[in-house]
Structures are given as structure tokens and as C-alpha cells.
């Protein structure tokens, strides 16, 4: 697989799933408060 494809895979995963996890964490933290 080309390096650019691996870069896209990492970018997509980090931004989408990392971002989702982060905002879900914030939502859960907000609910606890």
C-alpha cells in the first residue's frame, strides 16, 4: 500500500475516531457535573 494511503488511513482514523472519542468523553464528563 502506498505511503500516501497509509497517511490517509492514519489521518482519517485519528481525526474521525479520535475526535469522536474526545467529544464523547467531554459529553460524559459534562453529564457527570
Amino acid at each position, binding site marked *: *500500500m502506498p505511503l*500516501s494511503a497509509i497517511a490517509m488511513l492514519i489521518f482519517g482514523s485519528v481525526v*474521525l475516531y479520535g*475526535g*469522536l472519542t474526545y467529544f464523547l468523553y*467531554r459529553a460524559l464528563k459534562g453529564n457527570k457535573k
Partner: protein
Amino acid sequence: MAAVGSAVGLGNVWRFPYVCYENGGGAFLIPYFVALFTAGIPMMILEFSVGHWARSSPPKAFKKIGKKWEWVGWWTVLIPFILAAYYVVVMAWCFSYMIYSIDLRWGINAEQFFLKSFLGITSSPAVIGGLRAPILLGLLAVWVCVFIILYKGVKRIGKVVALTVPIPTILLIILTIRGLTLPGAIEGISYYLTPNFSCLLDVNVWLAAYAQVFFSLGLAQGIMITYASFLHKKSDITNNAFIVSLADAGTSFLAGFTVFSVVGYLAVSQGVGITELGIGGPNLTFITYPTAISLLPFAASFFGMIFYVALLTFGIDSAFSMIEPVTSGIHDKWKISKAKATGIVCTFGFFASLIFATGGGLYWLEIVDHFIANFGLVAIGLVECLVLGWMYKIHKLREHANKTSDVLIGKWWDILIKFVIPFVLCILLAVALVNNIINPYMGYPWWIITLGGIVPIITIFLLSFILMKIRGKGVET
């Protein structure tokens, strides 16, 4: 939760992979991510803020902005009604495939089965052919389901969605794992992920990316305004907007792996290149998913059935969210009961769907989807930004969002809504319009393009004004 259910649907697992395939795989991903972050998320925050502030259906919300803007609200609720007319047909296909999974009826050639045996596809859109009984049956079942769920009320939708979002996602992961272990999967994934920078100059790819973001997130369709009107007064608007947008895009990204791994497998097994497979269009996922199901090492029928049930549940959230804004609009304007409004809309919807259940239905689905999503949705997105950005004090909406939100948005958001998004959408629409005039879509004759693309858009536009002019019985705001 209901908004997540609405956003995550067949737009992710059915539409995203085929739009991505048609626009060059990896070539599409960069415009898609740009569209998501420059228009998708900012507009999601905008629609959440408007709905949360106005606490009413889109027509009434725009009326609150200014009486003369009520038509914008009607336009936003009529567009998803047209989308729902063919979206429900895709669900009817899923309904039939759920039954066909019992004996894996598509056999070894899923493409042949889908096009010839199932759709009974005609030679061109000019040849309509007869109604297809299995699709008709599925249509009836889906519209009845939509009616029943909406009849019960939107507040219960959250409970339905709590089940209908996680199950399909888990099954999608199972199919992705199977897909990735197939020979040729890496070639498919490479095609999906490798950026093609030369395609960044193609306006059609950019327009398709923005249209996909709007379609999939349920933007410019009144859906998010309607759902936000039900949010608790203290709900965190910005955080919710990010969660819905990222969950939606994450599902699309995942579905891409499932479909493209099978596309790679099909290309290798047929000894052709991925672009030479010729399986693009709305039928792509009805070729790749059945193939992946057949290739499961055990309990293929069981997983197939569960998968199509899951797709149906995925789709049902989006389907009723497309219908809900128009029923809410009618209910708000004329004060007729929600059940009656739902009944009227679902009946109209059923009859509007019939054209897509014919032998030539797939052609018409492609044509209507191309024009309504690429031009109708993007145009209303542009109008929404112009009206809310320029005819209303946009900073008031930002302050409203910030009042309830943990993550504060800055003035950059005002700039995006007022300048950047309208500018980009204007350019894309203008260039794509010229392109479509010079090269008619798929080379179809003009009467077909007029009937499937221009007439629905103009009808919706005119109907929006008529609905605004008709005096309602609603409480004046």
C-alpha cells in the same frame, strides 16, 4: 441520540461508497474531509443553534428570522421529502435482500442477480417497464413502518435509535474484517485511500463531496433544525454537533473499507483493474455486500439476514427524520393533528416512490439523486448560509450556542458561515451547472434530465413560496 440515528444511515453505507468509487476513490477523500470541516460541522452547529433557539419546525424557525424567509424553511423540508421518496426504495431493496439472505439467492454473480433478476432493469430510463412486485412489497412495508414510528412521536425515537445505531455498526465491523482478509483487498483499500491530487482540480469531485456531506449529515434538509428544537434547553449544542458529524463521517469511512476491500477482491478475481469493474452507481453496495456475505466462512445466511435487518434499521432512522420536518411544518402551520399530517405525507411519499420501483427505476433514482443532492441540497445550503449569515445577526446564534456549550466557538465560525461557505458553494454550483449544460448527465436526452432533475427542483422552489403565501392556522410569531 435521535440526531445521530438520523445522520448515520444508508447515506453512509450505501451512498458514500458509491460516490467515492465514482469520483476516483482516494481522489474523493480529500475534498470530503475539507467539505466536512469547512461546511459540514459549521453548518451542523448553525442548524442546531437555529432549532434550539427557535424551538419549532424549520418553516416557523425561518419565519422567526424574518416573515419573508418562511419559504426557505419550506424548501428545506420539501427537499428531504423528495430524497425520502427514493431513499425508501433503497430500503425496500434491503427488505428484499433480507429475505433473499435465507438461501443466499444472489448466488455467485451478485451483479447479474441484482440488475437482471431483481430489478429487471430496462435498456434506458425512457423504458419504464412494469412495477417490480418484491420492491413494491418492500416499499409498502417501509412506508407503514415510517408512519407507525412517526405516529408514536419523535420523543420516542431516541429509544428506537439506541438499538438501531450500534447493531449495524457492529455488523459492519464484522463484514469489514471479512472483507480485509479477502485476496485483492489491499488493492481495493489502496484505491480507496490513495489521494489523487490531479483530481483536486475537478469541480465535479468537490461538488459531489459537499453534496455527500450535506446528504449524509442531514444538512439543508430541516432535519437537524427539527431535532434541535426537541433538545433540552441546557443541551451542549457545539459538542452535540461534533459528535453527530464525527459519528456520521466515521461510519462512512468504515463502510468504505468494507466495500472497497470487496471491490478489490472482485477486481482480482475477474483479472481486471478496479476502475474497469464497471459496478459503480447506486448498485455498488448491492453487489459488494452480498458478495462479502457469501464469502463469510460460516453462518453466512444468518449474518446476511442480520446485516440487512441492520441496514433497514440504519435506514429507518434517516427515513423518518426526512419525513418528520415536513409533517412538523404542516402541523405547525395548519394545526392539524400530527397523525393526520404523517398519514398525508406518507401516502404522498408512497406514490412518489413508485417510479423508482419500476424496471427503469434505477436510472431515475440516479438522475433524481444526482440533481437533488448535487444541486438542490447544495443550493439550499447556500441560501441557508446567506439568510442566516446576512439577514440575521449571526453572532446572536453564536452567542446562543456558546451559552449552553462547553466548547466555545469563535468569530471564525461567523466568517465561515457568512463568507467562506457561500463563496465555495456559489463557485461549485456555477461551474457544475455549466458542466452539466455542456455535458448532460450520463449523456441522457434533455427531456429526461428536465423531468428527473429540473422539474423536481423548480416544483419544490415554487411550492415553498405557495406554502408560505397560504395562510395557516398556526400561532403567529
